[in-house]
């Protein structure tokens, strides 16, 4: 409607096109699924996205800020509902859900192991090997343990694990759920009285959480071992006893606890964000690729935020 006098209006307010004919602005597609997922329909969000181009930068930034806040609200609510379903329905339909959860753990954990081992070896060679080689030249072996723990155990290990799991499994989750959503299988689940969050989300979130945690542990152990292998090949004056003793001295109980919590948090939120984008919003097939990119971006954003939060905790510990 090229002649329409567009005004930014609330949903369902009356517009007048160029010919003076009234028409109504309504949010695009809403959920047919009316269960828990209904709470994620945000007409305000659709309204923000469909509004005409902003006239000022502050207008633009304000809209972006509101969109981010609404998304955060949706993801937070989705996470709480998923946690509630995990607790409340742990033994409901266990013959269906428990095998699915085991399959998801295999999918997000065991199957990724070869790739993780390769990345861990590379990480060990690149990060640890280089660091130890430099430390050998400077004679600063006393700091090796601290550097290893800070770089590999606290930061790189969990973050690299999370990003790899996101790339390999998280994106697949969005596509799988988004396609199902677009083809109406979520409505079919609801029609059969099956809770979509229990059936679709819970196994994926648990699988992703346990998968990322286990893979982080494997990645760190392999990276530390391969790092020493590189050092050994370079004939640096560092015995295995000294290397691992340095590590052991630098590791505190907080590192183990925070590593477990952090890697589980990465896995949990990757599962939540990918499922939220694949499931909680109405989709058409052509939207799936856009939503996948959006979910990936938001997952990285969330992981960085969690990492920053843990950085503060490490500083205080």
């Amino acid at each position, binding site marked *: 409607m090229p002649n329409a006098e567009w005004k930014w209006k609330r949903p369902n307010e009356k517009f007048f096109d160029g010919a003076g004919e009234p028409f109504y602005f309504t949010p695009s*597609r809403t959920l047919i699924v009316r269960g828990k997922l209904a709470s994620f329909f945000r007409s305000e969000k659709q309204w923000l996205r469909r509004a005409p181009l902003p006239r000022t930068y502050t207008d633009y930034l304000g809209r972006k800020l509101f969109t981010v806040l609404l998304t955060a609200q949706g993801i937070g609510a989705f996470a709480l509902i998923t946690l509630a379903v995990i607790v409340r329905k742990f033994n409901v339909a266990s*013959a*269906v859900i428990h095998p699915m959860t085991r399959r998801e753990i295999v999918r997000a954990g065991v199957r990724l192991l070869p790739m993780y081992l390769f990345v861990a070896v590379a990480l060990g060679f690149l990060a640890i090997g280089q660091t130890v080689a430099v430390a050998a030249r400077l004679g600063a072996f006393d700091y090796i343990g601290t550097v290893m723990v800070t770089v590999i155990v606290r930061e790189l290990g969990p973050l690299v694990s999370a990003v790899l799991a996101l790339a390999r499994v998280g994106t697949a989750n969005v596509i799988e759920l988004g396609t199902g959503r677009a083809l109406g299988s979520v*409505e079919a689940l609801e029609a*059969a*009285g099956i809770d979509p969050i229990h059936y679709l989300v819970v196994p994926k979130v648990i699988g992703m959480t346990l998968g990322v945690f286990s893979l982080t542990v494997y990645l760190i152990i392999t990276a530390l071992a391969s790092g020493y292998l590189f050092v050994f090949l370079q004939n640096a004056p560092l015995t295995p006893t000294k290397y691992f003793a340095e590590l052991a001295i630098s590791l505190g109980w907080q590192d183990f606890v925070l590593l477990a919590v952090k890697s589980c948090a990465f896995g949990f939120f990757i599962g939540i964000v990918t499922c939220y984008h694949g499931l909680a919003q109405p989709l058409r097939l052509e939207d799936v690729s856009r939503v996948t990119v959006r979910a990936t971006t938001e997952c990285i954003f969330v992981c960085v935020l969690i990492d920053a939060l843990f950085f503060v905790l490490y500083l205080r510990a």
Partner: protein
Amino acid sequence: MPIEMRGVAVGAGEEPDFIVLNDVNWSVAAGEFWVIGAPHHSGKSDLLMTTAGLMPPVGGSYKFYGKKTRIFDESRLADRLRMGIVFEQSQLFHYLTVGESIALPLQYHQNLKEDEAMAAIDDLLHATDLKPLADALPSNLPQNWQKRAGLARALALRPDILLADNPLGALDSRHSRWWRRFLDELSRGHKWLNEKPLTIVATTDDFRPWRGSRLKFALLKEKNFVPLGSWNDLLSSDEPLVKELLTAPVLAVEEEES
């Protein structure tokens, strides 16, 4: 009374604030077989989704077995399971085989292992001729068979009411005849349902295949729900839309040309 609507307003599935049907007054007694006719995009699916409790009515009162209903949330799970729904596009789970899709509701609600659930639906697979296709994925099946799998899934929990959204749409004549015969059997009481007559509500955009003395007909016209009566009432109706839905589109063009 399984279904009782008084002054119900039905919103569009994709735009819930847009009313597609106004003031629906409709009662369905146990064992009745209703066929609701309307052209495409007249609100047939939306009426079924509202009846199924997947969409709340925008206004009015909807009672399901005497209980006021908006949507079937978890507290009304038992009521939801009394209703089977056949979607127009089948909407099978694309990652499950036909057998797994049909067995899933049973497996989930009765907490059965996969092999137990498959054994439990064996009779249903035979009754719907889906036994040889039980291991096929939906994407490998023609639409005729996908739709039949959707019907079998809706019947898996032995519901009291079956809602079928345009079940004969896009079917070839052989499958269309099978559906009519099978729905008649269900309506009279099928072995799978322990001989209990099934209450059926089906929608259509073509009344012709639905000839039958036991059936009740209704029409959706200009946002109104218009009960029509029996097949004979349908034939004697002066309503132009009824005549349109009783006329084959190809024949209509031929008549115009001649």
